């Protein structure tokens, strides 16, 4: 007998392997799009499931591929349930409107406005709850070596904490970002498990605050520089072309071809400056944060690390975004493919788990999933 799960020398390094092929992924994606048009979007639950099956199955750790066992029907039921709850909410809003607001409402402000405002209001915290329950669903349908994943912890607590932290962060001019990042990563990581093997997280916001403060003020300085450079460029350009204040007012109050040209040039100048100066800085911070978070995770005897750098983060954040936008969404499979390749290339796993000690979790996870995520959040695959 060869039991490959027996622990070899500690901290043997390995990397995940992704062996998906872009052409095959596109085959699945195009069929999904075709069905989406034919069914007016109702096939998306099944399409998403097929894509996950492909991606999970082509990703392996320590020679063992992941398995996705979710079903489209489960996602469909999750969505319908949330739809029903929203219907009930709409009924409740109508009752409140009809019996207390309608007589005092200002003209042009109808029951639909009240409904949309209320949904927008509850949608923000519910998106976080949805992210957590979505994670729980996906992990419960993910298997490695036949063992189910799991996500413990309360999604509602996570939603409340995420809402409060994001609100506080917005109120303090984003100065709480390290606190938000670390404290929201903690429940997601420590709640996650493969079978009975829980993940642990040893991150502390204090570790990364110094670097964040540096980034924060550098970012402000760069913004000032970008705005200054833009204004100077337009000032010099305008002076050379003999454009004065009156001419500018005329151009923008009476739009014509010149207005369109000016807007296009302005967009190009600002996006170039933004792309060259601000985005690399942001990518540098995100890469640092990612390296920090990954390095503070362990699963029993297994440690994790990544050497992901600013260039990788640029490729992940900026190039992927451009691919999706420029292809009007048709580039999604390419983005997923690139992302999994990046993870496979840049994630290092040290050590091997004690397979015999990891047992199937007693909990089978939720019966349906991702309804909230589908309704209140932009959820990809």
């Amino acid at each position, binding site marked *: *007998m060869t039991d490959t*799960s027996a622990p070899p020398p500690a901290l043997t390094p390995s990397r995940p392997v992704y062996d998906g092929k872009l*052409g095959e992924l596109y085959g699945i994606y195009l069929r999904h799009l075709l069905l989406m*048009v034919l069914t007016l979007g109702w096939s998306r639950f099944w399409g998403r499931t097929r894509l996950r099956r492909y991606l999970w199955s082509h990703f392996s750790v320590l020679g063992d591929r992941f398995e996705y066992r979710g079903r489209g029907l489960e996602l469909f039921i999750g969505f319908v349930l949330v739809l029903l709850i929203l219907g009930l909410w709409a009924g409740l809003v109508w009752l409140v409107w009809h019996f207390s607001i309608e007589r005092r409402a200002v003209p*042009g402000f*109808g029951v639909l406005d009240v409904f949309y405002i209320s949904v927008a209001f509850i949608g923000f915290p519910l998106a976080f709850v949805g992210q957590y329950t979505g994670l729980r669903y996906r992990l419960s349908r993910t298997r490695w070596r036949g063992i189910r994943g799991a996500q413990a912890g309360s999604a509602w607590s996570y939603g409340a904490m995420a809402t409060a932290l994001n609100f506080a962060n917005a109120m303090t001019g984003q100065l709480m970002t390290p606190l938000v990042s670390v404290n929201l990563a903690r429940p997601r990581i420590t709640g996650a498990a493969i079978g009975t093997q829980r993940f642990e997280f040893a991150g502390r916001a204090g570790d990364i605050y110094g670097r964040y403060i540096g980034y924060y003020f550098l970012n402000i300085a760069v913004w000032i520089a970008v705005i200054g450079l833009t204004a100077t460029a337009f000032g010099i350009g305008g002076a050379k072309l003999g454009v004065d204040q009156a001419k500018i007012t005329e151009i923008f109050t009476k739009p014509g071809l010149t207005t369109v040209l000016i807007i296009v040039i302005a967009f190009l100048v600002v996006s170039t400056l933004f792309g060259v100066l601000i985005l690399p800085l942001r990518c540098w911070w995100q890469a640092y944060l990612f390296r920090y978070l990954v390095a503070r995770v362990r699963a029993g005897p297994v440690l994790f690390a990544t050497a992901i750098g600013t260039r990788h983060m640029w490729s992940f954040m900026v190039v992927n975004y451009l691919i999706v936008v420029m292809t009007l969404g048709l580039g999604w499979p390419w983005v997923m493919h690139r992302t999994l390749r990046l993870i496979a290339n840049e994630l290092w796993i040290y050590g091997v788990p004690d397979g015999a*000690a990891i*047992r199937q979790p007693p909990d089978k996870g939720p019966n349906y999933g991702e309804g909230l995520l589908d309704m209140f959040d932009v959820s*990809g695959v």
Partner: protein
Amino acid sequence: MAGPARYYDGITASVTEVGAKWGIGELIIYRPDDFSIVARWRLEDLVVLGDTEHEAVPLVSVAGSDARLVVVEPALRTELARVAYLAALDAPRPKAAPRVLKLGAALVVLVAAFFGLVDYGSEYAAPLVPYRLQAKVGREVRDELLAGRTLCKGTEGLKAINDLANRLARTGELGHPVGVTIVKGGPVNAFTLPGGYLVFYSELIDQAKDGEQVAGVLAHEIGHAVNEHPIKGMARQYGINLLLGLLTGGYSDLGTLGSGSSLLLALRNGRAFEREADATGIRLLEKRGLRADGMSRFFEQLMQHEPADTALSLGIWSDHPPTAERIAATKRPPTGRPAFTEQEWKALRSVCD
């Protein structure tokens, strides 16, 4: 027959490298080094999890169990797939390039068909929406658009413009009444909403040289109503947005570009509607024996205020045809009865006072 496969017992995360072979009515999983048996799975309980399209290696399991057999070696997969229960294990993997080409072509055809359907549906099916519903939508949109704006209350002026609007609507065989609301202030504009709700800005009336010019604009708006443009436009916009949403997956970041494309289509649509409304408006005025020169004169006046034709310079980005083209198409001699009496025109001029 033996070959490398991996066995997960479904209880722990242990991995055992195994071989597998067919026994009588069962699949025998064994350790290759000492041939000791790891598991015996009955033929009728065997299941293949997934397929070769989605799974790199479809897993073999038994019903109701978490245990899995991963047949890594292709030769062994072929061997096991000879038995019907595991045939799916070695099903041919779809070839990527022909599949992508075929599905891509099908998608293009389907999208074209969808556009055709939206075009047909908005032209022929949208007007079938009951008037009551159209009116409800129009009323809500009007209330929302005009919230906070001051409405003009001059009874006689409102009666004058509403009477003319309804006479023109009847001439155009519009099956329901229309209502004109006048908003105090600018811009120099007017528009028509579903259900026969017309909105005029008082600045348009202020800048008009005479009642014929206002009547020309009014006839143009009634032209929109008679041709059911508002509901057709809404249906088309909804259809295009739906298609873009489906194709882009509804991702919020794509909304900008998506709406950009749909805007282009809507604007092309808008230009066709404007031309049709101009022609219908002129026809209605002439049919009632009213002076029809007001519309082109109003356009000329706009041109005098703005010599560089905005619609022309913006090209495809404009939702209106070039003004010069509209003037040429709507030019009529100053013959026929005036649309408003002196008294009505005077009342209309002071409708916001």
